[in-house]
């Protein structure tokens, strides 16, 4: 471990270090291992500062920097606001109310998650840009002078990203509302709160860790997004990072800009933890809402139904219809048997990666429960940072050290045995799984950790008194309670991995093409009709786990 006392340190420091190390236990070592894994690429990225690029920074400062920061700031404010508005309201409706179509909407509203943001962006541009269908129709009806707001603006990007990312908030908030003890609401009502007050003063504050967790994921995803903003030609920090790399061919410059994102993400993580300090979010009494839903009848029910329907239509219905339309026109040209192999790879990678992520998320979350000291806390924060980096940058950060390690192994083996087995990491799927873990650990951890908060310490005490401890306690008591969080983590990670592009592109061994790779190839040549086919496969493959998840949560 890197914490081993070094010989250069003076004796007192070494002694203090040794003392600290003696106090570390198994949980610490697990968490340290995970944090080191995540830190490795971050260090590679941070190492770029060893080669400063003053000229590029000066250029950036003189020309674009202010504009980039403003553009990024708009997104960082707007997208969470939009996703919270949509996600929380929809979650509240489907979790605690009864209205026509509720059952259908409760799972269908997660569908946009299966739709990559850049696909949504492209469809929206096709519909609402000047040359798009809707403005063209409006002009033909009302004349060419009709004022149409420009979708290629901050507001347009915020709308598209909100529509594509709100399921994160929806999923976590819904989980919270469903597992909230109904007694708290009843108590609130007995104290004279009406329904609205009950929602804003009891239910919403109680669901805060979930909602904040969802918003945090949205924020980090927004910071790292490249696909959607580049379709809109909306310049953000991420597009500047890509320009540094692909335009100036300065990976150092790109990495230095990326560290800005890491800092922002770290601040966000700390802020999120700070806002829930000294709070316990354990439910009291019965959980679940079966039979106790708020009945929305008459116009109220119809309103709720139309609201859900409208959001579903714009966030999933329209893009899906467009994809189907394109797919039908290019099916004969594009589809062949290889699609099944790509689908298989996507599914397998998604499944393995998701299991790995869920398992590690569980370990982290559990470690923090058992070991609530500052070191563990900080290490767990660090473990989530991979999510805020643009995928390409993270991919390089992972690939460079592993390829270097491979080369050392090859050289050593040649020297020792006169022959070498070839590269180990970069020709195996292990590197991909590792990269996915580093990238999406935050997603899994948010979901699992918010569920973990629901386990009252008294449960542990009671179980121990009855003679159940150690692993049995975890298996019999904790796992069942966090299982909804685990299922959420699995689903989110699965779908995210299948959509993931830059890491898959960079780290896949020969022959491991996936649906996302195919979408990349076709869209980067502007072949949208043909790209619709792998995109549809991807959406369809994401549907099943999403439906399973909702069924599990509703039980």
């Amino acid at each position: 471990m890197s914490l081993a006392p070094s010989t250069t340190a003076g004796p007192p420091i070494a002694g203090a270090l040794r003392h600290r190390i003696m106090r570390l236990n198994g949980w610490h070592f697990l968490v340290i291992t995970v944090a080191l894994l995540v830190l490795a690429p971050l260090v590679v990225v941070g190492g770029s500062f060893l080669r400063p690029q003053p000229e590029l920074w000066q250029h950036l400062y003189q020309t674009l920097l202010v504009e980039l920061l403003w553009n990024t700031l708009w997104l960082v404010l707007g997208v969470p606001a939009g996703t919270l508005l949509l996600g929380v309201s929809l979650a509240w409706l489907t979790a605690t109310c009864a209205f026509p179509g509720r059952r259908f909407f409760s799972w269908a509203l997660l569908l946009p998650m299966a739709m990559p943001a850049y696909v949504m962006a492209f469809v929206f541009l096709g519909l609402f840009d000047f040359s798009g269908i809707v403005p063209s129709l409006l002009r033909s009806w009302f004349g060419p002078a009709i004022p149409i707001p420009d979708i290629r603006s901050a507001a347009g990007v915020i709308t598209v990203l909100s529509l594509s990312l709100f399921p994160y908030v929806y999923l976590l908030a819904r989980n919270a509302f469903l597992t909230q003890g109904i007694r708290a609401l009843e108590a609130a009502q007995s104290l004279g709160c009406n329904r609205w007050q009950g929602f804003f003063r009891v239910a919403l504050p109680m669901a805060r860790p979930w909602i904040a967790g969802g918003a945090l994921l949205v924020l980090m995803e927004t910071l790292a997004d490249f696909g959607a903003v580049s379709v809109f030609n909306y310049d953000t920090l991420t597009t500047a990072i890509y320009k540094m790399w692909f335009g100036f061919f300065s990976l150092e410059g790109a990495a230095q800009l990326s560290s800005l994102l890491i800092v922002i993400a770290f601040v966000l993580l700390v802020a999120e933890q700070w806002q829930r300090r000294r709070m316990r979010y354990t439910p009291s009494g019965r959980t679940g809402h079966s039979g106790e839903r708020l009945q929305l009848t008459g116009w109220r029910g119809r309103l709720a139904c139309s609201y859900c329907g409208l959001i579903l239509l714009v966030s999933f219905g329209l893009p899906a219809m467009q994809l189907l339309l394109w797919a039908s026109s290019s099916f004969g040209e594009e589809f062949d048997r290889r699609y099944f192999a790509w689908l298989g790879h996507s599914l397998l990678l998604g499944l393995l990666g998701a299991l790995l992520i869920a398992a590690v998320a569980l370990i982290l979350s559990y470690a923090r429960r058992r070991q609530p000291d500052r070191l563990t806390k900080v290490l767990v924060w660090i473990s989530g940072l991979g999510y805020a980096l643009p995928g390409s940058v993270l991919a390089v950060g992972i690939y460079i050290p592993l390829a270097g390690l491979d080369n050392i192994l090859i050289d050593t083996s040649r020297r020792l045995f006169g022959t070498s087995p070839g590269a180990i990491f970069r020709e195996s799927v292990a590197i991909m799984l590792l990269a996915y873990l580093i990238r999406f650990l935050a997603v899994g951890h948010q979901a699992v950790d918010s569920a973990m908060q629901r386990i009252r310490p008294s449960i542990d005490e009671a179980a121990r008194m009855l003679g159940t401890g150690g692993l049995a306690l975890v298996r019999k008591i904790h796992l069942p309670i966090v299982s909804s969080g685990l299922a959420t983590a699995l689903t989110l990670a699965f779908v995210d991995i299948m959509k993931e592009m830059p890491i898959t592109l960079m780290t896949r061994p020969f022959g491991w093409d996936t649906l996302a790779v195919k979408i990349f190839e076709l869209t980067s040549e502007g072949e949208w009709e043909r790209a619709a086919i792998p995109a549809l496969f991807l959406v369809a493959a994401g549907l099943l786990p999403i439906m399973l998840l909702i069924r599990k949560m509703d039980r």
Partner: protein
Amino acid sequence: MKSFVCLLTVMMLVLTTLPAFSAEKNELVVYSARKEHLIKPLFDAYTDATGVKIRYITDKAGPLLQRLKAEGEHTQADLLITVDAGNLWHAANEGLLEQIDSSILKTNVPEALRDPQGRWFGLSKRCRTIVYSTERIDPAELTTYEALGEEQWKGRLLLRTAKKVYNQSLVAMLIAEHGEAKTEKIVRSWVANLAAAPFSNDTKTMEAILAGQGDVAVVNTYYFGRLQKKNSDLKLALFWPNQKTSGVHVNVSGAGVVKASKNQEAATRFLEWLSSAEAQNLFADANMEYPVNPAVKANDQVAAWGAFKGNEMNLAKAGELQAAAIKLMDRAGYR
């Protein structure tokens, strides 16, 4: 639960320790930034003709170069294929490509379209040229790229984003011709004439002309070709600018032999084959481009766009001046 965990562990182990792939004798490994559907037919044809198998991986040029660098001398790559001369120039500049002295390649690829030191060779040619609305514009009004900044095009010009390497190469070639100060003036005058914020791709740019948002734009020929294929009654046409001066801006997709390759001989043979009459039509037609080999004719649709004089300055300039071009466009407010 237990059996499930066991199964999982076994699956992980099997997958992660899959026998590492090592190149066979009769096999080439290609890293390609040109997309699979545009190159796979060529690979298949070569395998049919010679029995040499080809393994490939596709990605953007930036990550591919980084991958090559990280793998160092132990890379399995034999050939690097990318689009845009700027990317090829950078690969050569990073020392990733081998100098190839092949009389076949020298005959098949015109001098302006290959590295003076023989590290990369253009394989297909595309023009970045002017496209205009046939409904609203008389082509007699058009002359040069530079003239698109004149007063008469105020509020009528449409451009793709400056972040696209094709525009960076175009501006780099203008810098090579006019110098920075004059080129910056030209780019500023373009920006002043824009009818809408720059678009993210050429197709959208042309659709905006069709919808009446603007009248002229600068695009790559094959994007125009694709629209034309879909709509034979397209109200757009290509114009070849700068015919009396430097010529139309041409760019290439091309390839070079990887320096660390263990199969440089075989890779060179393949590269030569790609420039041969046999492969050139396959290569170019897949994307409605022009063959680089002067002995090979473009296909009918492409040839129908008419003959033109292309810029004959060596494309290595596009790479050398790319960074200067990006900075210039940033200063000029071209996004």
